[in-house]
């Protein structure tokens, strides 16, 4: 301790304080403040950049999720529409089928009715023609038969014989 005090040089202490404080003030103005400021600014910049990148990433994710959702919705809608159309088509076909069926039935029924009617008419016509023809033939035959008087009398005799007086 005695040696320490003996070694202590006031002049050196004076210069040390003076130089150190001077250096401190100079460096504070010309070095430490601008350096720390620049470092701080840069760190803030990096922090901000990272944060905005993260935000952009989230935004992107949201967008992607939105897209996915919209796509899914559109797909579902399309599926629904297709299904509906198919249903409609089937219904239409079925309706047409039944309609055609009934129409056809109706036509067939009408045709049958007409055929029946025509048939009846034809039969009736045939009947009347056969009757006319028979009468004509009979007339011709009778005329021939009655050309001479004997035969006429014979016939009348036979006919009268047939007729039973009731």
């Amino acid at each position, binding site marked *: 301790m005695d040696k320490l005090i003996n070694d202590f*040089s006031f*002049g050196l202490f004076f210069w*040390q304080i003076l*130089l150190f404080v001077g250096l401190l003030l100079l460096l504070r103005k010309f070095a*430490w403040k601008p350096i720390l400021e*620049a470092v701080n600014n840069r760190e803030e910049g990096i922090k901000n950049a990272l944060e905005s990148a993260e935000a952009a990433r989230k935004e992107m994710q949201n967008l992607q999720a939105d897209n996915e959702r919209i796509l899914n919705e559109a797909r579902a809608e399309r599926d629904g529409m297709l299904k509906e159309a198919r249903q409609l088509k089937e219904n239409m076909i079925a309706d047409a089928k039944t309609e055609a069926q009934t129409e056809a039935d109706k036509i067939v029924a009408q045709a049958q009715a007409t055929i029946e009617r025509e048939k009846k008419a034809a039969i009736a016509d045939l009947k009347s023609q056969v009757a006319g023809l028979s009468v004509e033939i009979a007339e011709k035959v009778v005329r021939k038969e009655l050309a001479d008087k004997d035969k006429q009398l014979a016939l009348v005799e036979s006919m009268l014989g047939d007729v039973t007086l009731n």
Partner: protein
Amino acid sequence: MQKISVVRIFMTLALILTSLNLVAKDTDKVEKEGAGDLKTEISEFIDHHLQDSHDFTLFSDKETGKHYGFPLPVILWDGGLKVFSSSKFHHGETVAEVDGNYYKLYHSKIYKTDAEGTINYDEDHHATNTKPLNFSITKNVVSMILIGLLMFFMFSRLAKSYKKNNGIPTGLGRFLEPLVIFVRDEIAIPNIGEKKYKKYMSFLLTTFFFIWLLNLLGMTPLGVNVTGNIAVTFGLALLTFLITNFTANKNYWGHIFWMPGVPTFMKIVLAPIELLGVFIKPFSLMIRLYANMTAGHVVLMSIIGMMFLFKSWIGSPLSFGLSFALSILELLVAALQAYIFTMLSALYFGSANEEAHH
């Protein structure tokens, strides 16, 4: 081919070593008596090295008594300002006469003497002559100025490189910037706290680099020992002490004079102990740096000195290897002591700014 050349190198080395040894043996007899002198010379040399000096001597030739280096200005206050070159002392061999006053350099200190340069001693062999107030630009002051200029040059350039380069350092700045950030992130913020560290940054950064670079300068063969000087470490510790106590808040003083959370009797007992702690903390800073750097220099120089004492080809290379290893250790110590001084200063600033948390 390679093998042969390796063998040849070994042979030549062995030859050189043995021949050196032979020479050493021859001179051994002559210098046997001188060995004691050599030891005292080495210890004197180490002593001299640890002291501040009024001239910048790079090396001296003992035989011709010639010193190689340059003198430094001497500034004395002795009833008026006296400025003269230290070459007037002729390394303590002559008396310097300035304006009718006589001064003599004795053990690196300037004493006022008569024309013959008589030094009077007390019973403890201490000089009793009056010492004029000495504001000389000594070797240590020159070293501090050099380091100050170097620091200013380096860091103002770093600051400028930010402006030029859009906030990105270039060249040497790439090495310096991480150190600045280290002081901020590892020393200031953890010890002082996020809110208040900013006002201490200038002091902490200046202290860290000032001590570190001066420690490193002490490792060069220039033979300066600034941080191992009690006046320098006292100055640094005094600044820490002043800053701590002038920026302290109510809570800090409360903890010293009226410790909260203990019985009244204990408060009275604790107050003087805590008050003592206020002075002991910076005092320990001063002693730690001084003792570490001085011890490092003494041990390293002693081992280097041993090389000259051994004069054998086992001992000398051994002490050379040892001094080499120790130099590397001292490089670590240089950074470590700067870190510890700055870290503890930050710790004291932090305690002065602590908020009450009861």
